[in-house]
């Protein structure tokens, strides 16, 4: 088991390394490099100056060489400087990571709190009107464009009813937990609604599958109470696959967080990725993207491990069936 986890981790590291090269290369393909931007900003610089500057920063070297240098520096903890923030890239990113954790964590818990009970409830009524209603609602949640839901929430609760702030982390000058929580309500709800649908469907499908199995029928036949059959036998077995797909959907949650943070002006990782790409802040974009990738890979790894741990039958062969 330990060996297998170690092997999987190594595999994830290799993927991360490959992705760092891909992302590095892609970022290099974005319009305008730092020197071009400097030249644009300062009419006194001649093309010869630009070439000299490029040579100075090593920008005229081949891609792989530049990447190698970047990687060496990164492994030494040196991630470059933010153009927009005039700070080391890491110093920009780390506080944002905290904010994102709050948003993603809270909406993750909220969507699970909605999805798991409803999924189970719906599975117990499979193929009835109630089940179809749940499915309809779940598909509706999946089909909502996150940014539009955010706009609707802002229109209703911030503009019309004025119950909640339209965006931002906190009211300027106010330092209270309650204030920060108030600012989190709409983004958390927005992100949770768009993900609860998928989780409900996962939970329902897993539960329907398990309820069909023989051991559940046997438990019923033995005369165990329905509650016991449900909570002691069926649910634990249905949770294993659900937890796995939920963990695998971390990347989707992060994508949702990017939109949500942008819409509600939450200074988190997602908004940082977007802002740095749009603002040509390459060093920050690179590190933030890599961090997001690393987190997603870690979540996938966790999904594998969790699945093996929750389901003792799994011998941990390849993930691809």
């Amino acid at each position, binding site marked *: 088991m330990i060996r297998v986890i170690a092997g999987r981790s190594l595999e994830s590291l290799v993927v991360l390394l490959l992705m760092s090269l891909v992302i590095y290369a892609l970022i290099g393909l974005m319009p305008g490099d730092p020197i071009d931007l400097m030249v644009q900003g300062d009419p006194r610089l001649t093309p010869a100056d630009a070439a000299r500057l490029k040579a100075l920063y090593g920008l005229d070297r081949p891609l792989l060489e530049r990447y190698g240098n970047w990687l060496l520096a990164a492994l030494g903890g040196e991630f470059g400087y933010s153009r927009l923030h005039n700070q080391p890239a890491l110093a920009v990113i780390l506080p944002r990571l905290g904010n994102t954790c709050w948003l993603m964590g809270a909406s993750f818990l909220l969507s699970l709190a909605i999805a798991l009970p409803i999924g189970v409830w719906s599975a117990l009524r499979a193929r009835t009107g109630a089940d179809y209603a749940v499915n309809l609602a779940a598909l509706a949640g999946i089909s909502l464009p996150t940014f539009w839901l955010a706009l609707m929430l802002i229109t209703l609760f911030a503009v019309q009813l004025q119950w909640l702030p339209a965006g931002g982390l906190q009211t300027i000058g106010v330092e209270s937990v309650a204030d920060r929580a108030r600012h989190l309500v709409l983004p958390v709800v927005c992100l949770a609604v768009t993900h609860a649908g998928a989780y409900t469907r996962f939970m329902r499908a897993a539960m329907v599958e398990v309820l069909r199995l023989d051991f559940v029928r046997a438990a019923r036949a033995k005369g165990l109470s329905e509650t016991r059959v449900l909570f002691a036998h069926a649910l634990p077995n249905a949770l294993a696959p659900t937890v796995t797909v939920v963990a695998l959907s971390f990347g989707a949650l992060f994508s949702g967080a990017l939109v949500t943070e942008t819409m509600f002006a939450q200074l988190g990782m997602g908004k940082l990725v977007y802002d740095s790409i749009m603002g040509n802040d390459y060093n920050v974009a690179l590190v933030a993207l890599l961090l997001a990738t690393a987190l997603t890979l870690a979540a996938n790894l966790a999904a594998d491990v969790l699945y093996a741990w929750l389901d003792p039958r799994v*011998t*941990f*062969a390849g993930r691809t069936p």
Partner: protein
Amino acid sequence: MNAPAPLIEGRGLTRRYPLRSAGLFGARIGVVPAVTDVSISVSPGETLALVGESGSGKSTLGRLLGRLEPADSGRLWYDGAPAPKRDRRLRRDVQYVFQDPDGSLSPRLTAGAIIAEPLAVLGLSDGRARAVRVAELLAAVGLEPAHAGRYPHEFSGGQRQRIAIARALAPAPRVIIADEPVSALDVSVQGQVLNLMADLKARHGHAYLLITHDLAVVDAIADRVAVMYFGRLVEMGPRDALFTRPAHPYTRALLDAVPRIGAGKRQPRRQARSEPPSPLAPPAGCAYHPRCPFADAICRREVPALTPMASGTPGHVRACHHAGRWPEGLGSGSLAGAAP
């Protein structure tokens, strides 16, 4: 009787399957020696029956000869010369009929398309000529030309096997390998399909390698018989010689197990004494020795070679250290009474 020059021939064919534990990267936990060092040939126009109990490697040998899978070692010969790896002649001249027509016909192709595919792939005819040929073939196997537009699931099991036979017949092959071609069919249609196969042979003159459990069928249509046990040939020879004078204890046990063939002449002591050995732990020496009433030290030590019998019919060979030395009279069950 002189043995005619062989058409296809396998020399020293060996096939082992690695056995893995569950999962994509499952550990290799053993090797199944499905076919070991088998040399066998099919001559033009003959029907060679391949018999042996379940798991003895008959199908595997059939697949090796039909090039459905590659051999680990050994080689195929065709028309007296080693066959190249991708030999168009072999693809055309050796065709295969599978046991279960449900699995051997593409479910989303029409009967016509199924029968026409080998013609298309082998470039044997085109356009109208191909349509005519398909109609001919359907008629030859007792179906209507109008059936060409139907899908496999619209036919009965027996009709589906007829389509499979028509497909095998399409390139006008010289050998058809048929792996238990009727055992998946209703008993009531088994006879019809076997008769059809015999008729077709009479008309087209191709050879059959017929893999079967059914010794009554062997008795009815085979010219020669090859007996396999645990991946090896243990006896092979002309049908009458092999049935009347079986020269390997396993062949005798097989014949004993069939009531119609030599009923009442056998004593219980020559029935197989135990379960077949595990395919993962092959017995040393002669694989049959744990079940053989005549086994002794040499049988446990050395694998017997296939050798002709001093006083036997030409072409009758067996792999037994003790052939000819067992108590006379015990094994010579006559088939004469049982043959139709």
